[in-house]
């Protein structure tokens, strides 16, 4: 099964991932285009409400560290790279490499010999 997977350039899982990713990216691009045409800022809602709360309370809000310009993009990319690796690794461990009998072996039915002993 693993050998068969290696022969395939894009297996079904990768295809589903790519299609889902492109659906999201196209939706984001279309939204961004609309917002750009209509001169919308596209700020985060959290930031907007934080600004509003800061003005009403007459205080300055701030993050622990500021990530100016592309550093925010870099931080998010690095975080998401490793998140992706970790999710992929554990996903494979939990969903792909687990046989049905391994899952069932975790449970002993109450009427079975093991449960009675």
């Amino acid at each position, binding site marked *: 099964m693993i050998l068969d997977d290696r022969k395939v350039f894009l297996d079904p899982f990768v295809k589903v991932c790519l299609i889902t990713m492109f659906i999201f990216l196209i939706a*984001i691009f*279309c*939204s*961004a285009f*609309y*917002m750009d045409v*209509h001169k*919308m*800022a*596209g*700020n*985060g*809602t*959290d930031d*907007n*409400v*934080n600004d*509003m*709360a*800061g003005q*009403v*309370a007459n*205080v*300055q*809000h*701030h*993050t*622990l*560290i*500021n*990530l100016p310009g592309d550093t*925010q993009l870099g*931080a*998010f990319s690095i*975080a*998401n790279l490793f*998140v992706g690796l*970790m*999710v992929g690794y*554990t*996903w494979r*461990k*939990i*969903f792909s*490499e*687990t*046989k049905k009998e*391994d*899952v*069932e*072996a*975790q*449970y*002993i*039915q*109450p009427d079975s010999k*093991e*449960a009675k002993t």
Partner: protein
Amino acid sequence: MHIEDGILSPAWWLTWYAATAAFVAPGLREIRRRIQENLYYKPFLAMVGVAVFVISSMHMPCPVTGSCSHPCGTPLAAIIVGPFATVIISIIVLFFQAVFLAHGGITTIGANTISMGVVGTFVGYGLWKLFRYFKSPVWLAAGIAGFIGDLAVYLTSSLELALNLLHGGHLPFFRQWMIFFLGYGPTQLPLAIVEAIFTAAVLQVMISRRPDLIPDFAPAKSAVPVNPATASIGGK
């Protein structure tokens, strides 16, 4: 819902820290119990933790309002890893987001945990249990949990901001609360729909692939878990 440092007064952020602390011990107990029940729980919890981290920092644009916001992921996490364990996940997630991604704040981890990790979690989990009790289909129960759980997070964040102005604000408390919520609401509504679809889809996949990981769908309710000390997993 990522309230930043400097907005909440010390009295309020300490209050929210104290409220969050009350959930830590039950959260650790739930994790310990679930590890005993299912040997796959540990890697599963790790996977859900990093998934909540990325979901709650994934900004999606809303062209109607011209701003961006993010789903929360905690209603889904509550259903699959347990509500108290989700509170622990939320604390860790919010800490890393505050320290490394300039999202939220250190003094506001308590307040942000109460909104995202406690209210979003327990509202979502409660609705899931309620709908499942009445034999609702998985997609509907999960969708409602995701949708209402998401909005509940932002309703709570608005409440926290309004409570901060309880003494010294110029507007009546309820009006101030609704003004803050309207700051979030229009952008969050379509994202709550996205969260509902996402929650329903992930749960459907999980129940079909690994029902043993979801407490309500485990092989047999009366089954006795094997002693972890003697059980072997996947021949590893």
